[in-house]
């Protein structure tokens, strides 16, 4: 078994602030993902990475940067937080990016922007 950890669990920021969310997995999975979940909406893919140092844009990449410096970690940066923004950011990983690979999710980081 393995685990995905996300830090911090709760993140409160100010408008315009640059905020970084971190994700670690010990599954030795190749592919990692960042999703954003807003109330009333499904998960939307922000970025994913199929291997170390690889980055692929998802549907919601504008306003975000990502970094995959190690196989086990994938960080997401909100480049300029928007006021009244509230969402849960979920990190996931899978053995490969294909459909046969189950995605395992972390517990999420809840973002609030004041």
């Amino acid at each position, binding site marked *: 078994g393995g685990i995905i950890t996300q830090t911090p*669990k709760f993140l409160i920021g100010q408008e315009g602030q640059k905020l970084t969310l971190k994700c670690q997995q010990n599954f030795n999975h190749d*592919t990692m*993902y960042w*999703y954003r*979940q807003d109330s*009333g*909406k*499904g*998960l*939307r*893919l922000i970025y*994913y990475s*199929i291997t170390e140092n690889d980055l*692929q844009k*998802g*549907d919601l990449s504008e306003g975000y940067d990502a970094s995959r410096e190690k196989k086990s970690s994938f960080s997401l940066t909100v480049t300029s937080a928007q006021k009244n923004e509230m969402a*849960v950011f*979920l990190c*996931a990983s899978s053995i490969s*990016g*294909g*459909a046969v690979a*189950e*995605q*395992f*999710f*972390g*517990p*999420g980081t809840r973002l609030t922007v004041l």
Partner: protein
Amino acid sequence: AQKVIQVWSTTSRQEGEKLTLDCSYKTSQVLYHLFWYKHLLSGEMVLLIRQMPSTIAIERSGRYSVVFQKSRKSISLVISTLQPDDSGKYFCALWELAASSGQKLVFGQGTILKVYL
């Protein structure tokens, strides 16, 4: 246009009841997979069912099953004998083999289920 549609945003049921959560999807691809995930209140996301067009690949629990109607592009999650621990948010998701979609899942908006005693 939304590719994965879950009609209910929230629903409540009594313990012991049977519940069907509906999901419809849009795809023109031959190869695709469908998933049902449960998002727990703790934040954990658990895969419940994976459905390929012809088979069921993963079933997490005997109380979870699906009604898959390929021609109608519909996959419903059925939970029998509801328990309070079934409370949570349920997501339907689609993966399709297409150059444009790459290696990503498209999720529905989710259905919040509350099970009361």
